[in-house]
């Protein structure tokens, strides 16, 4: 039963942390809005030319996909690294297989020429 309290405690702490930080910063920061320029988009000091809500190329999307894939991999490795001492050899081999599979994915992407910017 106590495990349940741990989970609830962690959830509450997470939510409280987020709102605490935003609340305190809203409480003590300045409300000086400045004149029209404060809200203007920053482009090294010059007005932006044309409409900056334009469409972006496909290659950005592919890069984002690759990044997400390998970022999630890092999350799993991180969890594994914490309990590495308890997992002994079989845990190590399991992680090697996991990483190998992902490297195959990277190799495929590399061979397909996705990494060179088009």
């Amino acid at each position, binding site marked *: 039963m106590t495990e349940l309290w741990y989970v609830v405690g962690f959830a509450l702490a997470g939510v409280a942390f987020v709102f605490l930080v935003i609340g305190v910063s809203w409480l003590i920061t300045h409300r000086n809005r400045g004149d029209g*320029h404060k809200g203007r*988009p920053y482009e090294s000091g010059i*007005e932006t030319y044309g409409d900056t809500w334009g469409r972006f190329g496909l290659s950005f999307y592919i890069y984002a996909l690759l990044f997400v894939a390998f970022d999630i991999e890092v999350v799993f490795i991180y969890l594994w690294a914490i309990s590495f001492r308890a997992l002994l050899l079989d845990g190590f081999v399991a992680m090697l297989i996991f990483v190998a599979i992902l490297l195959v994915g990277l190799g495929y992407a590399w061979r397909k020429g996705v990494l060179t910017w088009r």
Partner: protein
Amino acid sequence: MTTDARTPNPHAALDDPSIFIEDVLRESIVEAVPVGRTERQAEFYTLRDGEMLLNMGPQHPSTHGVLRVVLKIDGERVVDIDPVIGYLHRGVEKLCENADYHQAICYTDPLEYVSSLFCEWAPVMAFEKLLDVTVPRRAEYIRVLATELNRVASHALTMGWFALDLGGLTPVLYSFIERDEIMEMLTALTGQKLLFNYMRIGGVNGDLNHEFMSRLGDWMSHAARHIEANQGLLNENEILVRRARGLGVLDEETALRMAVTGPNLRASGIPFDVRRAHPYSVFPELDFDIPTRREGDCLARYLLRIDEVKQSLRIIDQCLHQLPDGPVMARVPRLVRPRPGRAFAAVEGPRGLYAAYVISDGTDQPFRMRIHDPSFVHLQLVGLMTPGNLVADTMAIMASLDPVMGGVDK
């Protein structure tokens, strides 16, 4: 061409709840792309679909000073580029027309502020031609010694900024150590840290002193070793070499057509160096060679500057050994009134041919003082070399051309 964006925003301050945030921001996003008055402007500011105009504006980590570059980009690829300068235009030529001949040196000093001894030497040499003054040999040797030191300091900075623009943060610290040591040495000689104001019409301000000689001795002992260490840090660095090789290639014919001079020209294979092509001062007596490379890409320009530093060390060594005795200042009247006439004097600066063209009309103020700065001409190469590369490569190309905005904007 004052667009409506110039008038202050008619809306009340942003916190007026009645205004929905999107409206104000959309209102402020300016549709007013500048109207194309000249042929080049019209061609640049017509956007095909998928293209976007991006400002790498006057305040940007990688533009060396206040250079603004308008990029027309399609995703990550740069389609076209239009450098906009003038953000540091201080009107030096007009000020020199209202200043005495001695004071004109003060105005030209902060032009190419990274190598300010060269910015003094060109006008001073032009005034000496107008006055037909012969500078004593000791002063000429001290001038060559001081300017070569300034060249080493300037090239050290260039190497640091080149690595910084390619992403390396620590080489800047190494290059500033080297540069600060030389600056302290030149401060001991001239009395000022960055804008030396050391050269006078007819010679130099003061003779060599012990403080300068001892610091020079210490520095010369470990200068070659430091350069080797800095090179080891950068030359074999795989990232820098792969990014810089083959980027922004400048062939011989285009370099001559674009009136390029200095390291950027010599990196394309043409051994034009004003010290050899049009010898001035005591350079005919000094023996040094002009390093040239054939590839003409960013890496060649970077490596060429390291070779030039080695040549400068050789020149400094020879100057110290052949330093004659004698006065350091010729007899020049306090009130300088040269004959009516014109004089053109060119000096080989760290960035190229730095020249001063002076017209005098017999009064004590120059009638017209024209300063030719090499970086001003080299910035046109950015518009030539960047289209087709990625956005990140524009920094590498601009860093390899190494513009100094004080000289570009005069």
